[in-house]
């Protein structure tokens, strides 16, 4: 067993296990903490895939900003006891079946497909300059659109959270 596969199995177990924790725990705060652990595990998998810049973005945006947002949401919407805040609905059994079938179909098609690499280049040592080059040349219009989307979403979130009456 090489070091790479050893690290992969640890990170995969961490990611999947903590993702299960998000679903299984009945206390919403525990679910939020396990979600952060899932994000960190995914960032580790990114490092293993030679995506150093995206691993940093994952830690900053997901484990930092989005986790804080979710915790704020939990704090602002739960006033009572935190126990039993994250329960299952009526559709739980059938949605389990749907999710299981989807995973089974995806896994089957992944295993049966013969993936062919389109180039045998070695992955670059640092992805930052390559990603920056693509963002500023081929994908500059989507980049600007994403900027506008973030601005609009920010204004929309402020207006929604501020409410109609306080205007």
């Amino acid at each position, binding site marked *: *067993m090489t070091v*790479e*596969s050893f690290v*992969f199995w640890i990170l*995969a177990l961490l*990611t*999947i296990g903590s*993702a299960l924790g*998000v*679903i299984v725990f009945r206390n*919403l705060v525990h679910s939020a903490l396990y979600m952060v652990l*899932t994000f960190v595990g*995914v960032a580790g998998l*990114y490092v*293993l*895939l*030679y*995506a150093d810049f*995206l691993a940093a*973005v994952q830690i900053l945006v*997901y484990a930092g900003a*989005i986790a804080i*947002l*979710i915790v704020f949401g939990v704090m*602002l*919407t739960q006033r009572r006891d935190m126990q039993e805040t*994250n*329960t*299952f*609905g009526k*559709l739980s059994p059938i*949605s*389990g079946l*749907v*999710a299981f079938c*989807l*995973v089974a179909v995806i*896994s089957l098609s*992944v*295993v049966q497909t013969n*993936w*062919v*690499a389109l*180039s*045998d280049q070695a*992955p670059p040592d640092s*992805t930052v300059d*390559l*990603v920056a080059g693509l963002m500023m040349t081929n994908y500059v219009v*989507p980049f600007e659109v*994403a900027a506008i*989307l*973030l601005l609009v*979403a*920010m204004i*929309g*979130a402020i207006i*929604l*959270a501020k*409410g109609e009456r306080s205007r």
Partner: protein
Amino acid sequence: MNVTLNHFLIVAALLFGIGLYGVLAKRNAIAILMGIELMLNATNLNLIAFTRYITPGLLTGHVFAIFVIAVAAAEVAVGLALVITIYRDRVSVNVDDLNIMKW
């Protein structure tokens, strides 16, 4: 045994399935948002795994994953603002209670 593309794709499929189950089965609106985040993470993992094993050296998948992260950030901000507004109106974030648009 070396780590191959299939390993990463199966991990991503499991992550997506867990997120989907959370979205469909949970009653708390914030738990549903968490499930959506897990699913978006699974897609990003797929994009980067394909970049690493199918087109190494061509980083289009990375750029795409960055856009997915930007959209996910916008989505969670607007989603939480909606949840907070609903909570202010109805003092509940249980999606079973939100049947105002039901026929």
